[in-house]
């Protein structure tokens, strides 16, 4: 049984002009100890998937369909009281721009202790100090940093502090939303290295949300490519980069210049992501696709497995003739 099994998730945001169809039928699994990259550009719905899992969508957002199976149990039907037992203790999240999420008025150690106390009742003071120290050590921070205020810590240290906080109640799944953005590349490498270490040591499941394919190539086992609220392609990381099937995936890979390769002309994908209030009929990518056929404009392609090896793609180019 998978740690997390998302089955046909549908999440909409209600607006005055109608529902914004942010996530429209997304399915994928995450296993223990495995890192899955959720990749896409702005508006693809990847953050909404994360918020749906944790049930922390803004007031206008709502999961309207599908299942979120956490160790076999569907979270979609959980009441708030039940979700509170899941958040932080089973599934945890580190947000984008997290370095600014720490309360500037409290020391780092106190904030981590607070996270423990909110979710677990009756933890002794000695236990709190001990666990906080351990958590800091886990993320490569010296125990003395527990007495530092956020402004006394660099961006990288704050990010580590937030990861420590996210692990405070020993969750089994960690969701990291753009953990490297806003950090310098060397610090980014350090943070991703810390996360990789943790994943191995604690056998953590991880969902890494990012627009950066290079980061995903570097840290993930599986990759889910999202576009306009749907999954375009989904495979093992090696398989995806070796044999990208979906034209969007191919375009995305080409759009990342590699520092190691010879100087080439960079390519992009013409056009821009669609308006999710009124997405295109048929395949949502067809207006930007050089291979679009008439069927692409009419019928939505279904995510199907192609060529074994758990490589899924939603594209009419691969319809059996």
């Amino acid at each position, binding site marked *: 049984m998978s740690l997390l099994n998302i089955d046909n998730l549908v999440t909409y945001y209600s607006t005055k002009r109608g529902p914004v169809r942010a996530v429209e039928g997304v399915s994928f699994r995450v296993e223990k100890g495995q890192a899955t990259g959720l990749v896409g550009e702005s508006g693809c719905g990847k953050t909404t998937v994360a918020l749906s899992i944790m049930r922390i969508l803004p007031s206008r957002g709502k999961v309207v369909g599908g299942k979120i199976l956490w160790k076999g149990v569907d979270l979609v039907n959980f009441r708030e009281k039940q979700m509170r037992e899941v958040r932080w203790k089973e599934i945890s999240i580190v947000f984008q721009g997290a370095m600014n999420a720490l309360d500037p008025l409290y020391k780092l150690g106190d904030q981590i202790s607070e996270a423990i106390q909110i979710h677990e009742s009756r933890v002794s003071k000695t236990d709190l100090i001990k666990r906080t120290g351990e958590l800091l050590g886990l993320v490569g921070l010296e125990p003395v940093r527990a007495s530092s205020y956020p402004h006394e810590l660099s961006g990288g240290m704050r990010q580590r502090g937030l990861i420590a906080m996210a692990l405070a109640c020993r969750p089994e799944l960690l969701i990291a939303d753009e953990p490297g953005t806003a950090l310098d590349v060397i610090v980014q490498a350090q943070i991703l290295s810390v996360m990789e270490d943790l994943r191995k040591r604690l056998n953590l499941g991880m969902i890494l949300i990012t627009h950066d394919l290079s980061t995903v190539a570097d840290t993930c086992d599986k990759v889910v490519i999202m576009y306009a609220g749907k999954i375009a392609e989904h495979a093992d990381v090696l398989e995806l980069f070796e044999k990208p099937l979906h034209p969007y995936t191919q375009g995305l890979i080409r759009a990342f210049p590699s520092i190691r390769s010879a100087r080439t002309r960079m390519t992009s994908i013409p056009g*821009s992501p669609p308006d999710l209030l009124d997405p295109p009929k048929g395949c949502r990518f067809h207006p930007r696709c050089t291979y679009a056929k008439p069927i692409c404009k009419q019928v939505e392609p279904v995510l199907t497995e192609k060529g074994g090896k758990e490589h899924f793609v939603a594209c009419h180019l691969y319809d059996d003739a």
Partner: protein
Amino acid sequence: MTEEAVVKVVNLKKWFPVKKGFFKSLLTRKELFLRAVDGISFDIRTREIFGLAGESGSGKTTAGRLVLKTIDPTAGKIFFKGKDITGLTRKEMKPLRPEMQMVFQDPYESLNPRMTVKDTIAEGLGVQRIVSDEKEAEEKVLRILEDVKLVPSEQFISRYPHELSGGQRQRVAIARAFVLDPEFIVADEPISMLDVSIRAEILNLILELSEKYNVSFLYITHDLATARHLCDRIAIMYLGKIMEMGTAEEIVNEPLHYYTKALIAAVPVPDPKSRRTRSIVKGEIPSPINPPSGCRFHTRCPAAEKICREKEPELIRVSGEHYVACHKSGQ
């Protein structure tokens, strides 16, 4: 070395005074400065795309502003087309402004939301009195819109920024810079806030226009992968100084400075078969208010020795265009 440089800076410095807390100011007289740029020298040639790369706190953005003289240097000299502009007043700079322009990072902040595309692009034309009437201005705007591929141009002139995507806004920003027919443009992270799939479009546009109109670029970025594909030469900055400088090939394929090597090693590659090696440097960037003694990088350098802590290395030419500031790279 007969090519005349469009822009040349010599030992440029910018120190920002730092306010001390009340008690600190009672205890010590010493002035504290944030040494954003602390003695850099380079030149940019005709039609060259010169990359200034570095992480946060390296001083690259400040360097860009100094070169355009939107802020005044603390020390050093700036030459534009051979002329010393270091001491020029704002009034004296005005006639030079059309020749040196800027494109900013944030396409959502750099355009006035209350001005149409036409007004935004034509504004500089009016201020500099390059055109004599409304009609001439409109013609120039339509032509530049075609150059930046915002077509049909007649449709775009009356649009407002909120009706445009990030990529389109950045094209307007580029059009605004090019319409004055400059010789030199400073582009500060022009694509970092755009979606990945459209970044290349904007970069290719910069390349195209640079060739078509003979414009040199100072391309400021933290993204070495992009710099490698776009720039002719690259200078690597760290804490206000240049650590290494050379052609894009030299920097990426034969880096000499340990910081450059660390930066390159840290850049992820879109290929799962070549995973990043563990970082060879530890720690994070020290404060530019109190930079380390000697070589600024010595606190994080795996090869640091006594001389590195005591004496600042000079930027020395190693071959051709390749320069490095390191006591140990000679070996």
